[in-house]
């Protein structure tokens, strides 16, 4: 019993630490002050002005872009990453080490280096920059993370399961779907979430690959504003809204899962 309480409270403590800054953001979203940390009285003004962005430089627009890019990039990198992981898993140890090393390079590289090299690459290839280049760039740096999520699962999985399925008469595709994927699903899911998280938070790589058509993601919008006039105050209600939404979503999923068990 004691152990349970200890372990629960430990987790609780960590969560408090993680969420303290976010709490601050939410609290200060209810004041008009331009600077985070000043309180000028309770007000909803920021929430209303949030949805009145200009046409060219709009926060909501940027958010929308960020979400779309994130989802697309995450999906493709999950697919790519899983395939890669399976491939890596079946390589001989020598080649495996080499490919793993190559895989890890984007993770370990400082993001600005990745950003500039991708930028130069796109320039050399003459690809006009915009949505496509950003998505491609995001895919390229998210995929290694997916590989890292899926590969350990493959290692832990019993290799014979796949062969057993084949022996029992399944076609390779069926074996893939019914044996491999369920095993890998948690890894793929966590890879997807990881890739999505990385994509929506990314700044430098996006900055260099957005081209000149006026594309903006949340990160580039925020950083650009921060340089000129301090952090856009409207960000605070935006973050609060995103946060609450996801929290509610999680709660709903939790409830649905509970119903399923019954």
């Amino acid at each position, binding site marked *: 019993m004691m152990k349970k309480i200890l372990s629960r409270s430990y987790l609780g403590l960590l969560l408090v630490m993680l969420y303290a800054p976010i709490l601050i953001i939410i609290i200060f979203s209810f004041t008009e*002050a*331009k*600077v*985070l*940390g*000043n*309180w*000028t009285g309770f007000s909803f003004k920021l929430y209303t002005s949030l949805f009145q962005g*200009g*046409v*060219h*430089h709009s926060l909501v627009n940027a958010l929308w872009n960020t979400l*779309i890019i994130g*989802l*697309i990039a995450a*999906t*493709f990198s999950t697919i790519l990453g899983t395939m890669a992981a399976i491939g890596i898993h079946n390589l001989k140890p020598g080649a495996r080490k080499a490919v793993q090393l190559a895989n890890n390079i984007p993770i370990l590289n400082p993001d600005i280096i990745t950003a*500039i090299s991708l*930028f*130069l690459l796109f*320039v050399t290839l003459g690809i*006009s920059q*915009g*949505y*496509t280049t950003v*998505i491609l760039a995001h895919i390229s740096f998210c995929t290694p993370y997916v590989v890292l999520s899926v590969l350990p699962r493959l290692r832990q999985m019993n290799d014979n399961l796949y062969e057993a399925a084949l022996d029992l008469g399944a076609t390779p595709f069926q074996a893939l779907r019914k044996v491999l994927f369920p095993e890998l699903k948690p890894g793929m899911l966590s890879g997807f979430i990881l890739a999505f998280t990385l994509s929506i938070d990314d700044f430098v790589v996006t*900055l*260099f690959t*957005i*081209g*000149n*058509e*006026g*594309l*903006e993601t949340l990160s*580039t*919008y925020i*950083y*650009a*504003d*921060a*340089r*000129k*006039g*301090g952090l856009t105050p409207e960000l605070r209600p935006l973050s609060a809204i995103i946060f609450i939404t996801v929290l509610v979503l999680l709660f709903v999923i939790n409830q649905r899962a509970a119903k*399923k068990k019954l």
Partner: protein
Amino acid sequence: MQRFNLHTILRTALFVLVLASTGLFFNSCKESKESRSKILKIYNWADYIDEDLLTEFPVWYKEQTGEDIKIVYQIFDMTEVMYTKIALGEEDFDLVCPTQAIIERMMYNHLLIPFDRNFGSTPNYLSNISPFIRERLDAFSKESMKAEDYVVPYMWGTSGVLYNTKLVSAEEVSSWNCLWNPKNKGKVLMKDSYWDAYNVASIFAYANDIASGKRSVYSVANDHTPEDIALVEEYLKRLKTNVAGWEADFGKEMMTKGEIWLSYAWSGDAVWAIEEAASVDVSLDYIVPDEGSNIWFDGWVIPKYAGNVKAASYFLNYLCQSEVALRNMDISGYSSAVATPEILDEQLDSTLTETVNLSYFFGPGNDSLQVNPIQYPDSSIVARCAIFNDFLDKNDTVLEMWSRAKGDSLNQGMAIMIFAFFFLLAVYLIYKRVLRYQSKKRRLGKKK
């Protein structure tokens, strides 16, 4: 049953996503097919222009030339990124708005092209720019390139000290010494910009020479001789011990919170900070120290790879109209380089008690005006300011000096810890190798 539903949902979602992305891809292909002469690409800082103008300009343009135009507006947050994109990436922006030092660098590296003064029947508003700014602009003319052909000044201002009136006296901040004064230790912020830091340190270091007339502010800031650089390094090292830190964007915010008593700031930022601080009952003010400072300005230029010089030139003309300039001033909080009577009228504030002499900017006869002195400094202040140039080929040397001055944080404890760690790691790895070797031997031994 439920598992199947989830599965199908996921599959349809995936399908839709793939469709969406291919759709987007084709869409972007389609856009590039639109004629380039109907598009104007503008690259600017955030919140630096009235965005409604971006929708009004196409109307004006159609009136003047009968042609359609669409504006594509892109934001950058750091000059260096902008520079990299244009220099390395050959991006085809039509208009960019850098600060004068970068403009100089771009001109020097042949990255700019002159704009087109042929405006047909449209009146030429370019002469609205104050001669004061235009003169300073001329200092950049190099070889056969007249700066006036390449740049249209946009906003201008000074650099000085933003200070908390309750915690620091006005007298104290009338000298750059306030930044070095141990009395303010830990309560001072300096910009994390080697350009600003070098110039401030240099002016302060040579304050006596400037006062006695031996050297001008301009020469102190722009000569960049090895002795200058060495002396600046010394001063910067001393400054480092006194500052709370080197801020890039959040200095003015920390000042409104009262944690920092004084900081180096640009006039436009100061205006913003003073307003914001007032809303939380913190009283700030801005001053340009007596030793001297700089006048900075930024301007619109057309990069080498631009695709639509005609529309760009028209836009520059458009910007120089009084009403347009006023609106931009409103949004950005800075002072426009346009000096027409209309602008002057708007700036007059009869509640101000002190007057400033602005004949240098608006023309003779304007020597006692009630205008915000931060946005429009008095002529006495301007007299002790100079334009700071870019370091150009001394850039590398100064950067090295800058990183030496800022130093590093490595201390004994950290170094020891790191060495210990790697030492242990090496020991551990070797130990494992030895074990493996031994167990291999044992296994081989057993087999026999």
